[in-house]
């Protein structure tokens, strides 16, 4: 009888969430149409590749301004931060965030439909990556540790749930992901020594369904052998800063985890520190781990491995494979078999000086001399990493993985030379760097072409399209379109500042749009003829 009631509730819930004409059907998440961008990366794969071709390498030179929306110019109060997330497009409406704020914007005109402001109790307001949508409900995180659900029609609140502890200096910034009727949410924070985790919530009630910790929390937990003791592991970091990617066929979601804690001074956490700085495959229904690959064993440089793990199918040595690839913050590129996490390709996409080669599992072997030192160690990449949170893109058309890479040197110092450091205990200083857009052949890990940003640097996120284009923020406060095959810069348009997210594209009423954020402004470009 209880089971019957449960099933009935589930059916009703699913029907409600499936939504009416303006909602997002769950099927739209698995196979999104070109008139939508229904999640952070556009689809579950993380490829940020669009099949649209109306704007292409032959005509992109005629791309021109569509509309501009300014966060500070609408109904919201001033100083609402900048756009460091990706808008989500559902049924002609863009849903956009900054910390404590959500906007609904007409995707054809840039007109604001509604704005939601959150009354904050604190937390780090460094950025917000965006929303998830299911049915007629929207989900986002706040800096003061809440997962909040709104009605997409009018921005009214449905529910709020606390997902982390502000007193431990956690905060919320991650764009949630909807998988199998669950809201998957990560957490942020790296000031105090706290564990990272990922959790699932019921989209109707907000109740937590499971939590997976990135680092061992008790005896018997996998990975405990890679820490000196249980206390070090329990406080060992591994924050889940980024939205996950997902393979519906394998029913595995891919979580990317942050650096270990204490961050720089590392004397009290000898070992590999699993499962920090890793790609981890989890069952989205249970939170159980299937496999993990650690790209930075015993990281000491603040090099999280939360860069997007991109899902695609391809060929390695002539054999068809289910693959997942990541250009990690530590400067190394990995292609794994996503069924089991075995490394198939390991290479550096920005020359580094901190490794002694790769081990037989394809992981970089850290050079102990390049760990931070009291008197300093000159290291490349710097703390910002060869790549950071801005998303890469993969084009199945060219077979190239594109990432904006930075090659920078800095000196890493230990400030706390004691046996039991806490928090950071050191940092890096100074620096010289250059940046370039790298096009990586996934089969070999070799750079096919490299486009240097001559006049400065760009860490912007990327978009690739079947129009043989890659869109990137440039080094001159501009949006640039490059030929995806050759790297030739074909078009650019000046913005109000550096591109601060990754561009997206969609088609409405036969017109293709390209949308990018720069600071507090959202820019849209179209073919106006």
């Amino acid at each position, binding site marked *: 009888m209880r089971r019957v009631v449960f099933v009935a509730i589930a059916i009703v819930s699913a029907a409600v969430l499936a939504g009416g004409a303006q909602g997002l059907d769950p099927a739209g998440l698995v196979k999104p149409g070109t008139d939508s961008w229904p999640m952070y990366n556009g689809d579950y794969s993380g490829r940020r590749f669009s099949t649209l071709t109306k704007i292409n390498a032959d005509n992109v030179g005629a791309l021109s301004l569509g509309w501009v929306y300014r966060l500070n110019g609408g109904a919201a109060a001033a100083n609402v931060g900048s756009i460091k997330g990706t808008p989500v497009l559902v049924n002609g409406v863009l849903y956009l965030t900054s910390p404590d704020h959500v906007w609904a914007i007409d995707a054809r005109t840039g007109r604001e439909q509604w704005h939601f402001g959150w009354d904050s109790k*604190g937390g780090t*307001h460094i950025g917000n990556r965006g929303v998830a949508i299911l049915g007629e409900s929207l989900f986002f995180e706040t800096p003061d540790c809440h997962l909040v659900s709104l009605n997409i029609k009018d921005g009214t609140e449905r529910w709020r749930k606390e997902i982390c502890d502000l007193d431990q200096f956690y905060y919320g910034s991650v764009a949630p992901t909807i998988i199998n009727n669950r809201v998957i949410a990560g957490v942020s924070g790296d000031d105090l020594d706290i564990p990272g985790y990922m959790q699932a919530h019921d989209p109707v009630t907000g109740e937590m369904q499971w939590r997976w910790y990135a680092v061992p929390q008790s005896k018997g937990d996998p990975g405990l052998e890679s820490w000196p003791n249980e206390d070090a592991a329990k406080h060992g970091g591994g924050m889940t800063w980024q939205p996950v990617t997902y393979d519906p066929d394998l029913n595995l979601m891919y979580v990317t985890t942050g650096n270990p804690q204490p961050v720089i001074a590392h004397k009290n956490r000898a070992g590999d520190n699993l499962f920090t700085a890793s790609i981890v495959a989890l069952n989205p229904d249970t939170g159980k781990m299937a496999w993990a690959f650690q790209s930075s064993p015993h990281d000491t440089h603040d090099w999280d491995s939360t860069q997007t793990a991109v899902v695609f199918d391809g060929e390695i040595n002539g054999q068809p494979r289910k693959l997942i690839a990541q250009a990690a913050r530590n400067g190394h590129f990995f292609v794994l078999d996503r069924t089991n996490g075995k490394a198939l390709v390991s290479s550096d996409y920005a020359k580094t000086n901190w490794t002694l080669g790769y081990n037989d599992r394809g992981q970089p072997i850290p050079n102990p001399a390049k760990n931070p030192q009291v008197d*300093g160690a000159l290291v490349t990449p710097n703390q910002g990493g060869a790549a950071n949170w801005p998303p890469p893109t993969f084009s199945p058309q060219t077979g190239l993985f594109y990432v904006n890479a930075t090659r920078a040197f*800095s000196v890493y110092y230990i400030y706390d030379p004691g046996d*039991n450091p806490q928090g950071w205990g050191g940092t890096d200083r100074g620096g010289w760097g250059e940046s370039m857009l790298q096009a990586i052949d996934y089969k070999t890990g070799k750079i096919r072409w490299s486009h240097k940003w001559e006049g400065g640097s760009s860490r912007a996120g990327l978009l690739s399209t079947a129009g043989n284009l890659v869109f990137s923020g440039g080094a001159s406060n501009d949006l640039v379109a490059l030929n995806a095959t050759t790297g030739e810069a074909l078009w650019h348009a000046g913005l109000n500042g550096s591109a601060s997210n990754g561009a997206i594209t969609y088609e409405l009423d036969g017109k293709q749009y390209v949308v990018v954020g720069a600071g507090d402004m959202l820019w849209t470009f179209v073919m106006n003829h």
Partner: protein
Amino acid sequence: MRNPVSAWTAAALVLAGSLYVTAQEPRPQPPPGGRGGPPSGLQQPRVNAGANDKPGVDPVAAAEGKKIWALECITCHGTNARGTDNGPNLVRSLVVLRDRFGSALGPFLKRGHKMQSGRSSALLSDDQVLMLAHFLRDRVNDTLRGSSEFEVKNILTGDAKAGEAYFNTEGKCTTCHSVSADLRGYAGKYEPVDIQQRFLFPRNATPGGGRGRGRAGGGAAPSPATAITVTVTPPNGEPVSGVLLQLDDFTVSLRDASGWFRTFTRTPALKVTKTDPLAAHRALLETITDKNMHDVVAYLETLK
């Protein structure tokens, strides 16, 4: 005989009482998206994290708390409250992290906790608990970026003789520099860490600078002598040179010697030649070892 800390305690209690009341009252609501602010008059960490109402630290109270700590707590919990084999780490304690001026610590200690003197912690007065709360919050803040503990320690570990040899030979420093000219008295101007940063990353260095643990990085404008310059040669025109302002795939901008801002649209026929006076420093990063780096700092530090 009054307790020797009573005079301070009276003041501290007034302060603490007002703060505690403040923390219990409805806080003024910040504007949507606003941060609100911590209680005024107390030291807050530079890291902009945690709850708006996280407790600040009164250094006087923390110093008094340190005395209690030394008498009753240090043996088990350690000098910096990070724990020992006999007692847990309190910097990571949820009781401490969730405490607001004794609100969580007080009830915990009132339950009775054997201290190193053998007394029960239940005997601690409210103001002693408050002092301990300030001391412990100060220890938490020590671990954060920007704390007073967050500073470079001794970096003078190199061999000055070896540094001199590297300076004169392999490092090729004498191509542009002389210890009897531009580097004369160099060590008197800068702290060792600034010397290290300045020779590795001169473009980030503040012109002039000064001894005083200044940071080499920080976005200061480059001096004219080290600015990157560019020469642009149109297909049918005279070359134009100046300080590079912007260079991308589409345009190049410069300010010429007469002060005019010039922009050119880039074409295959437009020749653009960039010159970086600090290119040798950049190239050095590819070859210099950490030992070379420490030796050069030790050598430059001798240039008083």
